[in-house]
């Protein structure tokens, strides 16, 4: 799931400074689940903007809407009427949603209200951790299903650095587990420790094609 975080309020206020009528547009999928851009967050941000403007003594009219997936043109089109009413759209969707919206309504500025942060999973309610760097060259089969590219602070591909702390913690952040210790223990459990001896060549990230495209065979 894509994880996002709301931008700092100062930045959002500046983004919409020129406008008196905006639409706060949420997305009902990933960013709802990570409490960044669902219907609740739309209502909260809209309320905050109204309060901000009234404290400044300037006017604002804030419309609110949430679609199921902002990265689908067919779903974004539902917002046509509301977008027509406003000067700008403040999107709480991930970067993909913002761009879909911007493409659909080319005559209106579509402004991002969240920073799309990473692909992750919830550790408990309200806490998400990064799990995947979307590198385009998955090798989780060899690391016991633990990705060192994002879960190791240094993104090391061949075992831990020299700084692993006592108890298998990371030298950069002692709160975090060393990904390579986790990988070792997982492989040990599976009787596949031989994989630790394998050498992996540095990944050539420059080879990742931008912009990425995935074509499903059956489509």
């Amino acid at each position, binding site marked *: 799931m894509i994880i996002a975080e709301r931008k700092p309020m100062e930045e959002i206020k500046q983004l919409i400074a020129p406008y008196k009528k905006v639409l706060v547009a949420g997305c009902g999928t990933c960013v709802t689940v990570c409490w960044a851009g669902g219907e609740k967050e739309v209502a909260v941000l809209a*309320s*905050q903007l109204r*309060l901000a403007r*009234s404290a400044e003594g300037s006017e604002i009219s804030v419309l609110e809407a949430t679609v199921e997936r902002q990265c689908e043109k067919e779903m974004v089109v539902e917002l046509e009427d509301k977008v027509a009413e406003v000067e700008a759209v403040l999107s709480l969707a991930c970067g993909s949603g913002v761009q879909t919206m911007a493409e659909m309504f080319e005559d209106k500025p579509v402004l991002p209200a969240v920073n799309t942060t990473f692909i992750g999973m919830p550790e408990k309610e309200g806490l998400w951790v990064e799990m995947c760097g979307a590198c385009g060259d998955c090798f989780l089969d060899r690391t016991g299903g633990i990705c060192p590219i994002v879960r190791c602070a240094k993104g090391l591909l061949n075992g831990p650095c020299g700084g692993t702390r006592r108890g298998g913690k990371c030298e950069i952040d002692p709160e975090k587990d060393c990904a390579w210790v986790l990988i070792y223990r997982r492989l040990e459990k599976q009787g596949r420790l031989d994989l630790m001896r394998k050498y992996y060549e540095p990944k050539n990230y420059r080879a990742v094609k931008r912009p990425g495209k995935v074509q499903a065979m059956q489509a």
Partner: protein
Amino acid sequence: METKIGVFLCNCGGAIKNIDFDAVAKKVAKFPGVTCVNLSSNLCLEEGKEKMISCIREEHIERTVVAACSPEFTEHIFQEVLEKSGLNDHLMSMANIREQCSWAHEGDVTEKAVELVKMAVNKVRFLQPMEKKAVPVNREVLVVGGGFSAINTALQLSRVGLRTTILEKEAALGAGTEKLESFYGFYPSSMVSAVEGGRNIEILTSAQMTAVEGNIGDFGVRIRKGGEEISRKYGAIVIATGYKTELTLDSEPKLRAEDEAISGINIVSQEQFCRMLRNPSLKTEPKTIGFMFDFSDENSRFPTLATLNNALAAKKKWGSEIYVFYKSVKVDSEGVEKLYQEARDYGVVFLRSEISPTITIKNGRVKIEAKDVFLGEDVILACDILVAEELYLPAEETETLSSLLNIRVDSRGFYQDENVHLYPVSSERKGIFFVGGCRDDLDLGRVLTDISSVVINVHELLFSGKIPVDVERVKADPQKCVACLTCIRVCPHGAIQLVRADNSKEVAGISDLACDACGICAAICPAKAIKFQGYRDEEILAQIEAIGESSNGRIVAFCCEHSAYPAADLAGKLRLHYPENLRVIRVPCAGQVDVFHILKAFEKGAATVLVMGCEDGACHHITGNIRAKERVNYCNMLLKEVRVDDRPVAMFNVSPNAPYKFVRAVNEITKITKESGR
């Protein structure tokens, strides 16, 4: 067509003096939708109720507002009236113009009364009828454990006609009950044979619970017995897995086996000492005996009881010299003061020490060294036997079982959260109960009370074979739910599970039976998919709207109906006056208060928002007040981003019997609000 609203005002037989009811009636009549306004002085009496019924029928009223005393006292009466007049009993809202208006303020409060009625009228427009249903439940009960509590609970449940299964991990029942024999003078063996002969009781020994699913009325339990896994269904589960004791002596000298105990030196547990006492072939009677207790935990009931009982019994039987080293001797169990006195009278010597004595073995005897508080001197005693201090601890399987059952343990690891609302035998999950030693260090009297409580509770729940519920009182809209699992993770009552809606996508399904109607899920749902009838956005915002129109300096207080709301009522009853600018919105739990509702209150002109819930550690819904506090902090952060105010949202913890605290909080916050110029 506009919904027809009937407003019923009551002056409570003249007890509400500072409200001009004619003026209220005139103003209220002009509110949109209000079809009729009735004045009464005895709405809750037969005459008043009859008038109300005939008015509802004649005027074809669709929603009712009752402006009278607190809903805490009369809501159920007016709900019955609605039912009799053919209206769904949920289509009513009450304005508390007595306790929280007339009695709470000095001077004329007509204007506030009008505003309170307006809040109720605004809310009632949005209320929806709620269907009632009796859900069939399984009448069988599972009792886990094989000791005194478990056997007695099963016996009593079977006697009231509920079929019961006893699930015991040991090979036979009553293994741990031996201890009780010497303390209380009865024989568990008769109890065991009674339960074995019980027609309504099934006994599964050498068996363990491996999984539990479902909710009250329909728990699906998987049991491993022998090599086999069996699945059973139960309506309720009673946990009676007891406790364990452990000697506090962690270093040498080590305990010796029982047979060696008779020969001379020894350090023994209470249980071993009991066996010695009962042993008819004991060769050498110990001449000097030392006891130690309550140094590690002075609130220990069972160790206190065991020490006094055993010391006295030994004195009577052997006439030995007996010295008891203690710290406090707390005697809160029934009859223990008497027992203590009796022991002293018989010549048992009690020596008080602040710190645990030092134990060594010297010349084949146990040497106890302590600093006696009263003598102010060191006391050294060489004795034949030391009955060492024992700790009362949760049974081995507590952790495993609590995670299977999805219930909490307290800070010492015993079942049952330390929460006054759960005492004596309830858990945060409906239909799961605790009895006896598994939930606390209890004496027999308290255990018997537990057993009675649990039998009454279970009987009341299951005996009729069905439980009445409000259908879909709290519901996740399957169209909006994104299955983020947040509600499942936060529900303190374990009432939410993923279900397949119409055989398609998985969504949060809230069990009407297991739901305790706190609304914590509704307040946290990021998709705003969960609706709690009566406390939906529309209904809360409608009330805020009514406050807003005449606001400025208004303090909006979201008051939990288990704590702050009754505290406010009590303040009114005691005529403790507080500023008129307080507007109370009644909520089922402080944890139901949504960040968005608080922000809306500010949008509508509130100067300050109060969230008032149960005291720390005593939330009716376990975590509601903790979540409320987190949200209040979050709200202050959100507001700080856009305004200059200093913490305009405040959280207060109040218990329902603390009217003075309630009033102090309101006064304090009014003062702060004034000073900050809001």
